[in-house]
């Protein structure tokens, strides 16, 4: 049943009424109105809903709220803005690294987690880090190029 839940989202504490078993994705997209993380499968198989939880890319569809409280959660909205873009956001624009773009939010998040740990990854490391993110349009190689560009051109803010 609903309880008061406190979440640290994009550097701001948010308080809401929800059941501890509700998924993080459902409150991000619902009560909090943060729609960048997308629903793709609901079973952590596609990566479209990935967000950073204490720096790790995790599937928010499969993360209950009780597991997210007390942790720093970052969504694509919190990664950067047009005025202060994250290097990955700049690089994805420079490389036109998508077709439909539905998967891109989760992919940028996975890439951000990778670059935090490994600022200068090899192409194989980038591909391995994205193996739990699916893309159906076939934009994979552009996406990999964008991530390598971001690694070259700027350390994450």
């Amino acid at each position, binding site marked *: 049943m609903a309880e008061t839940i406190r979440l640290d989202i994009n550097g701001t504490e948010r308080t809401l009424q*929800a*059941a501890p078993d*509700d*998924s993080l994705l*459902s409150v991000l*997209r*619902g009560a909090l*109105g*943060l*729609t*960048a*993380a*997308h*629903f*793709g*499968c*609901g*079973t952590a*198989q*596609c990566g*479209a809903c990935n967000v950073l939880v204490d720096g790790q890319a995790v599937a928010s569809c499969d993360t209950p709220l009780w597991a997210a409280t007390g942790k720093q959660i970052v*969504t*694509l*909205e919190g*990664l*950067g*803005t*047009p005025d202060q*873009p994250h290097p990955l*956001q700049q690089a*994805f*624009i420079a490389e*036109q690294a*998508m*077709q*439909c*773009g*539905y*998967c*891109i*939010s989760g992919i*940028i998040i996975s890439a951000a987690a990778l670059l935090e740990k490994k600022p200068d990854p090899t192409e*194989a490391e*980038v*591909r*391995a880090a*994205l*193996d739990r*993110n*699916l*893309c*159906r*349009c*076939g*934009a*994979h*190689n*552009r*996406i*990999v190029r964008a991530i390598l560009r971001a690694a070259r051109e700027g350390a994450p803010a």
Partner: protein
Amino acid sequence: MSTGPGLGYHIVEGAAAPLPGSLQTNPRLSQWLKFRPEGIVEVFSGKVEIGQGILTAIAQIVADELDVDLARVRMVPASTAASPNEGVTSGSLSIQHSGAALRFACAEARALHLDAAAQRLGVPVSNLSVSDGTIAGPGNLRTSYWELAGENLLERDATAKVAPKRPDRRALAGHATPRLDIPDKVFGRPRFIQDLRLEGMLHGRVLKPPSPGAQLTALDESAAKSIPGVVAVVRDGSFAGVVAETETGAAAALKKLSAAASWEPGDALPDESNLRAWIKSQPVETTPISERASGTGATVARTLRREYSRPYVAHASMAPSCAVAQWSRDGVRVWTHSQGVYNLRADLALVFTLPPERIVVEHMEGAGCYGQNGADDVALDAALLARAVEGRPVSLLWSRADEMAWAPLGAAQAVDIEADLDAQGEIVAWRHDVWGNGHVSRPGRGKAPTLLTATQLAKPFPRVIAANPPLAGGGGSERNATPSYNFPSWTITNHRLLTMPLRTSSLRTLGAFANVFAIESFMDEMAAERGEDPVAFRLRHLEDPRARAVVEAAARRAGWSSWKKSDGRGHGVAFSRYKGFGAYCAVVAEVEGEADIRVRRLVIAVDVGEVVNPDGVENQMEGGAVQAASWTLKEAVRFDRTRITSDSWETYPILAFSEVPAVEVEIIDRPEEKSLGAGEAAHGPVAGAIANAVHEALGVRVRDLPITRERLISAMA
């Protein structure tokens, strides 16, 4: 982006020809564009963005022809309330249909405004120039499209008498231009229909049957209704669903509803273990497709015959389909990611027995669809749910399993090819037979709706068996069944299934994927019979210089002739001209592997005529190639005798990042040739090239897709 004095416009002389592109059916200029006093031009295209970058390519054309900055162009999403009816966004035709219409409409709009400016300023048109929408004459004489917006110069039918700019005078078309939609997507701003949030919006979930054709015999709604926040439980025949204040509430209520439903199963599904035999044993409608009479008089020394097949393939969009619907006393408004807003409206009108004008269908972007996914079906579901809560919008998102198992599938196909060879092993006759379900059950084309749930209502509509589009437009099952090679004679025949246990509709390339896979595999088998190089063998049978050019370019770029053979590695080539009259594409694939095949590299040469956005073409080719590699190596919709079992990413795997090959694209730009779509050119050739490369690597010929470990083993046996 300006034209100097003396380059006013050029009138095309001559008798009235049909209007270009979609102007034929939507001639009024004001249907296409409107200048706004605040300095923008609104553009109404009936084509929709499905991740292919079409809106950007069209905006480029508009900016070029009008001489305005791209930033002033507002692409208005397609809507039955405002847009020209351009049918469906499919078949790689958007540049030909909408691009051509807008190119001529804008050229004429520019001329009309120049004429008006000339009158207003009192100078001849030849003394005027246009720069970013400002029309300038000698000295300080100035006016603009924006100033002239009030004169309603576009309230007239197009004549197409004003010639568009020559390709070399276009500032944007032909150059890579950043896509207009990408910034929203990298900053996570709401852009997709799944992100739409309307005032008072409710959330729905629907109960899909346990198997195709199953009947809902009993439903206890009480447990679902007891979930807090549930606003309605809806049932109509075998359709059932819930509406709740939140998505979480709707999901919880659906679980209760599902547990309280009793079903009577539908008809048994085919045995998937011998799909090719099943396809060829069904009742069919047989149609001759193409016949070329023999001219050689050569004696047939022997006949070579091979059988190929492809399985059912899922669209498997990254997003489950979604729609939002809102009823009022007057009718219903639907937001959809359908590829054809007017077509969807027509079927909704049939289901709800409403005049079409009481239904407004508006497009919003969804995930890439690659054909008819669940977009249209979910729109009917949403409208059925929303009818129970008149006044409030209802957003309905299908589940992953709904999308995988209930969206239409790409039809499975069997292909037999036979060639008669003379004593020298030269082809003297060629026969190609293709069997499979039709490739189109799109809405808006018949007397009965084709939407999934229409067959499940208390007053059900009959199930529509998928048909094939006309051959003149490229056909369906028979697409690319007629070879592009100069064989002296051939007989091409299509057998469309009249049963449809698994629902099929348009998936990218329709029948071309299987037909090209079969033809190009067979071409390699025949080259091998003769001991001839596969590239040389193809070139010897190709006369069209544009066809030869892509084969030569791909071979050169891939280093075909300097390939070093080694164990477990192979390369292969394939070619097709999409639909027989579309884009030319040749592919060289390099693979390695033993039990599991890995594609290392795909080298593609393509000729799409005039290129509007080179980066857009490259992106479409790369994407098509990767998707085709995934279909070729991995994809088959699995089912048992009652249900589709491929209902998740685990049971329907696609190519992952670490499995994706390097893709190189060489574009042969032909600015003087008509633009041809790029989105479907690569699929067939990629499948053929991979199959041929696998044969070189392992000495095994896999003729039933996909080329999985199991298929390799059974082909070795």
